[in-house]
């Protein structure tokens, strides 16, 4: 890899590091839930290496713990991850992927890797995305391994607060994207819709529902407000 590409890789890797602290409490929650569901240490680690989705893994082990039907398990996994379709479409707007990259990089794609890459705009590249993905993959699996190994000793009262880093990071990323009053208005519409869907029990489906409603509202609104960028 050329020096320039190495620099891009490490920029992406470092860009995600503020979220490393947040992975520990989620890893503990996942490992404890998995142990209660009767999974072995190997199964727990393999899931982090393969499924590689904090929310997805927690939901999966909870469903395994109650012997949920396989159809229920798989439908839940699909519904929780359908929004990744939008991430791929969004990333293709600014980045050019080779055939090989289009089939390999998605395996490691997460909300955070997507968010950090998009927020870097023109400064991001495919190599930057790879760095961001590897950073999260590395820390998630290390955290799982440590939680697996140390069990209760890995729990720390500080973990109670660390899960706030994730929403804090997404908020910071949102701030970098909001460049006009219209963008602010769309964000507020999305926030309002999310609050409604989450409080009425739509859970992880909320992201799809909000996108399904807020995008047409935004497109219609852009004609009304005359946002020239759209």
């Amino acid at each position: 890899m050329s020096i320039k590409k190495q620099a891009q890789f490490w920029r992406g890797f470092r860009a995600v590091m503020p979220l490393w602290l947040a992975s520990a409490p989620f890893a503990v929650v996942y490992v404890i839930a998995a142990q209660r569901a009767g999974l072995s240490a190997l199964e727990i680690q393999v899931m982090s290496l393969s499924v590689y989705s904090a929310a997805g893994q927690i939901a999966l082990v909870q469903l395994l713990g109650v012997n949920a039907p396989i159809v229920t398990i798989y439908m839940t996994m699909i519904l929780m991850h359908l929004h990744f379709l939008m991430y791929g479409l969004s990333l293709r707007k600014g980045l050019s992927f080779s055939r090989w990259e289009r089939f390999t990089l998605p395996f490691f794609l997460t909300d955070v890797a997507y968010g950090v890459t998009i927020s870097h705009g023109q400064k991001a590249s495919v190599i930057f995305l790879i760095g961001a993905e590897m950073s999260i993959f590395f820390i998630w699996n290390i955290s799982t391994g440590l939680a697996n190994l140390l069990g209760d000793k890995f729990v720390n009262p500080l973990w109670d607060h660390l899960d706030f880093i994730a929403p804090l990071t997404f908020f910071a990323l949102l701030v970098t994207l909001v460049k006009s009053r219209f963008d602010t208005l769309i964000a507020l519409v999305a926030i309002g819709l999310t609050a409604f869907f989450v409080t009425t029990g739509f859970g992880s489906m909320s992201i799809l529902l909000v996108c399904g409603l807020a995008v047409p509202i935004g497109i219609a609104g852009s004609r009304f407000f005359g946002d020239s960028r759209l």
Partner: protein
Amino acid sequence: MNTFWIIAGATLLIYLCRVSGFILPIAKQSRKWEQVLHLLPIIIFSVLFISPLVRQPDLILAKFLSLFVTAVIVWRTGQLGVAIFVGFVVFYVLSNV
């Protein structure tokens, strides 16, 4: 069914969700897609940051003050890492007051 097979099935399904956006054919020059792709990140980040706050509204004042400080630092400096670190410190201090 053996747990490893269930994990394998879940892995495949989640991978298909992740890869779908990379392989679906789209008209790159479509204006409609440009509009959608401009709005998507704003909407997605709004959902991702507000969902946990709605699900767990404890210490909400501390969280909102922390978000305000984070926003100010991002606007003034553009430094994401610094903003997140300072914002979290503000939240941690306020939550322990």
